């Protein structure tokens, strides 16, 4: 192993509890898609995204509103499931995560998806129910 590789490995091991490597597929293929984010305690997935937007890449697009799991706007896809970013804490010791846009919907940009189809289905339900 070269000196550079050895040094990289050492610094990786030293910092692994303090940083999380976050991978996010971007609409712009030229945009940064991997980030080394400092952990805070507590840290929700939403906090990871905010840290990236504020300190790494302001062009990262994602939605949120209330941040207390009341508005259902911050949906993302993580570990095989759609979750609310404001409801899921980053587990202790986890140093790597891939965050994708919610599955089953058309991507607008980065992590933002079209929600019209969900709303339309709901409106149809309301109509059907109130006939």
């Amino acid at each position: 192993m070269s000196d550079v590789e050895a040094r990289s490995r050492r610094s990786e091991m030293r910092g692994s509890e303090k940083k999380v490597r976050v991978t996010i597929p971007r609409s712009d293929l030229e945009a940064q898609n991997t980030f080394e984010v400092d952990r805070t305690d507590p840290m929700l997935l939403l906090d990871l995204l905010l840290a990236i937007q504020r300190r790494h890449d302001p062009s990262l697009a994602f939605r949120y509103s209330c941040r207390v799991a009341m508005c259902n706007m911050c949906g993302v896809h993580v570990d095989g499931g759609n979750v609310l970013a404001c409801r899921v804490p980053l587990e202790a010791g986890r140093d790597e995560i891939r965050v994708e846009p919610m599955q089953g919907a058309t991507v607008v940009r980065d992590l933002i998806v079209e929600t019209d189809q969900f709303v339309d289905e709901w409106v149809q339900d309301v109509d059907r129910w109130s006939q």
Partner: protein
Amino acid sequence: MSIDGLRTIDTDVAIIGSGGAGLMCVLHLADHAPELDATVVSKGAIGRSGCTRMVQGGYNAVLDPNDSLELHFRDTLEGGKYLNDQEMAWTLVTEAPRAIEELESRVGCSFDRTEDGRIHQKAFGGQNFDRTVHKGDLTGMEIMGKLLEQMQRIQPNELGDARALDLLLDEDGEIAGVTVLDVMTGEVAVLRARVVVVATGGAATMYKIAAPAREKTGDGVAMCYHAGLELRDMEMLQFHPTGLLAGESSLTGAVLEEGLRGAGARMYNAMGERFMKRYDPERMERSTRDVVSRASYQEIMAGRGTPAGGVWIDISHLGAEEVERRFPGMTARSRIMGRDLAREPIEISPTSHYHMGGVVIDKHCQTSVPGLLVAGEDSGGVHGANRLGGNGVAESTIFGGRAGDRAAALASERKLRDPDLEQVEVSVARAIAPLQRENGHSPFGITRELKEVMWEGCGVVRAKKGLLRARDKIEELEKKAADVAVSGPAQANYAWQEALDVTNQLTVARAMVESALVREESRGSHFRSDCPEQDDKRWLRFIVAKKQTDGRVRIDLRPVKFSRRRPDPADPSAEEQERKEPSEELRRG
């Protein structure tokens, strides 16, 4: 009609905001004038932005025969330290019982009930009767969920993820419409309307520790201020005493509802002392929000706070099952951050929560601009110097409904007007400038600095020195904001939105600091350590802020009209106040 190729949309009534006020407006408009075309404009997703949804506690209304309108009115005035507009406060109190009935039988809400089937009303701070209607600790979700379904049934035009930029007047100074920016596409359009209703909510987000949802950046108040409308009570910003402290997490500032204190929660400093006994020995933790916030703040400043800068709240003595049953939402939230409200004390801090101040309106939501209505947190006067818990969602829904009633009547009398072209050009240029600038300041840095200076200089406890520092800093930040640059596409660009948000927050902050400098006394949520006493002889007047043509804030003082109740019937100084000159003008920067 097209302006430089800008898309123009025509509607009868434009409703800016889709919270409790905006959606009740849609409902009432549809009831009274279903033939009118309504368009809802919402910066975030329609019905899923803002704070009505986040209301935990409840909705105050006189329902019990042992309660009385006069008592609710008195509680509201005493909470507001008699700065309230009494006609508006009386409107709130008298309409609330009908509004609860409307929410249940017309909108479809169902509130918690007692065993004998009556609506359950719980205890809330600062009131002499338990009159807070609720659904568990998630009252706002019930109200917004059902309001949104009603709105879907009515099917107004929806401009979701679209932010209103500026109010547009025609050459006669009458309302013509608004410029609107589609957040997802990055395009600007002109929305013309016969009547415009502004209901976007306040700007409490401009503090380091803040409760509201991210959309609440004072857009409505800022656009009204820039259109020349008068604002009142801008110095009155409510801090909720029990906000979560969660380090740098976005959870910091989220509110633990007042019902906790109503149910017997105890507050402790880092020494394990129930410190409220030194601030309000009679009411203890059930005192009003301003008193409890100030108490916590003073404990923290005196060095008796936790290392993270907070105090403790503990309701575990009720038993874990009882806490889980009564406060499910909050218990779940505490567990997400690795704590447990049901079993241990939780670290809290005062958190910036609600703005009592706002646009001057009459009890029909009318402003000085014909055809322009304002409802909800964007308006000022109902709550005076401090809002009672449970009166906020009442105000939004009641006055939102009244705005709908008035808009229905006005729209048929008003025509569509052509907005002044120069205003349109200025609005569009200002909005797209950050995208076009190659180099400039980052909007996130400006927001961070504003939040810090407001917390330090115009926070729970204020003083002249800190306010002057805040004034200077705001001026510096306004210059930076005029030179902000964001990269990236126009589509779904939240750095760009942040730049537009912080511009509005700065406008509100400026009016707030100027008003706080003028009020040289302490009253309600405005507390000055350099003038800690309430001075009814000199200060039973409300502060009006208005934009001057040179861009500075003009301040007027107006006496409070005690049209229904005097602060102290036996106090002669109250009469003396009324006999003074009608208004006093002071020029301020």
